[in-house]
């Protein structure tokens, strides 16, 4: 499935014309500080396309063994956290990865993530390729609402 999505995305990228386009803009990135003993963490960010559609296929970071794209789907009374293969960003639109919704799940973190640290995330887009960003670790206990979209 993942390979299929990648192939489709690559095909789309190669056939979509020669218009020069910059990579999607990534803003507001942050990583949730982790409780002691945590093996996982969540990262949030906003991806904006300036007119060229693109698709987030995955991410890597030196701070964790693996990164997966996750979302929450409502299933009756239950919220199911579920892996997704790709996060499409339509032309001229923004996609918010935010608490309680789409997010990056960091698996097997190398060390506790504490406020003040920065981690590097390499985001892999179908069209733009790798986009590297730096995301601050934020301790949500002290920070107040950290995302303008939190709780929406």
């Amino acid at each position, binding site marked *: 499935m993942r390979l299929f999505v990648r192939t489709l995305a690559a095909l789309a990228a190669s056939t979509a014309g020669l218009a020069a386009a910059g990579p999607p803009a990534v803003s507001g990135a942050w990583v*949730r500080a982790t409780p002691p003993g945590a093996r996982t963490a969540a990262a949030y960010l906003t991806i904006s396309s300036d007119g060229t559609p693109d698709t987030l296929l995955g991410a890597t970071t030196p701070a964790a063994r693996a990164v997966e794209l996750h979302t929450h789907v409502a299933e*009756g009374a*239950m919220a199911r956290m579920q892996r997704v293969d790709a996060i499409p960003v339509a032309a001229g639109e923004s996609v918010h990865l935010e*608490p309680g919704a789409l997010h990056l799940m960091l698996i097997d973190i190398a060390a506790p993530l504490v406020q003040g640290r920065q981690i590097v995330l390499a985001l892999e887009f179908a069209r733009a390729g790798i986009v590297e960003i730096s995301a601050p670790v934020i301790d949500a206990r002290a920070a107040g609402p950290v995302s303008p979209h939190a709780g929406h």
Partner: protein
Amino acid sequence: MYRRLAVAATVTIAAILGAGTWQYFESRRAEAPTIGGYVLARPRALPGVALVDEHERPFTPADFAGHWSFVYFGYTYCPDVCPLTLVELARLEERRASELPAQRVEYFFVSVDPKRDTPARLREYVAYFHPAFHGLTGEPTELHTLAQATETVFDVPDGQDEEHYLVSHSSNLVLLNPRGEMHAVLTPPHDPARLAADFAAIVESYARR
């Protein structure tokens, strides 16, 4: 698998019947407060399940008596919605302490992942969010009984990695009254200001019974 489906179906039907019953009584009981969620028309005693707390002490629902209890079902491997909710509960507790200092309230994080969440693991986890928070867990059958009685669902989907599996669970908060009875369900998003206002309304209505 069929048992899980049966449990899920029973819980769903119970929830629908419960919601319907509540709406029926709600229309006749003007004093029940309007909250983000619902207040049970008649608070309900919990079944006597055997749990263990974060200090490895036995815990039964009788131990919920004597104070209000906010109960949240989750697991510590959960990176997003569980820490999010526990942070909101810590903020709720800050508000409660200043706005309703006379009310005794305790907070319980019930791990539905006893395989990975030992009491010791729960102790360090909940204390990170608030020094007074409690952790509970138990055998899966006991957890399912408690979940069903509190209109909560959870499930470990099949076919996952032995070590890195995810658990699905309700994102509702359950409120138990000082008799240790199931009293209300609060639905997300869990905004601390809204939770504090809802709790104040519930407390006032409870005092006027």
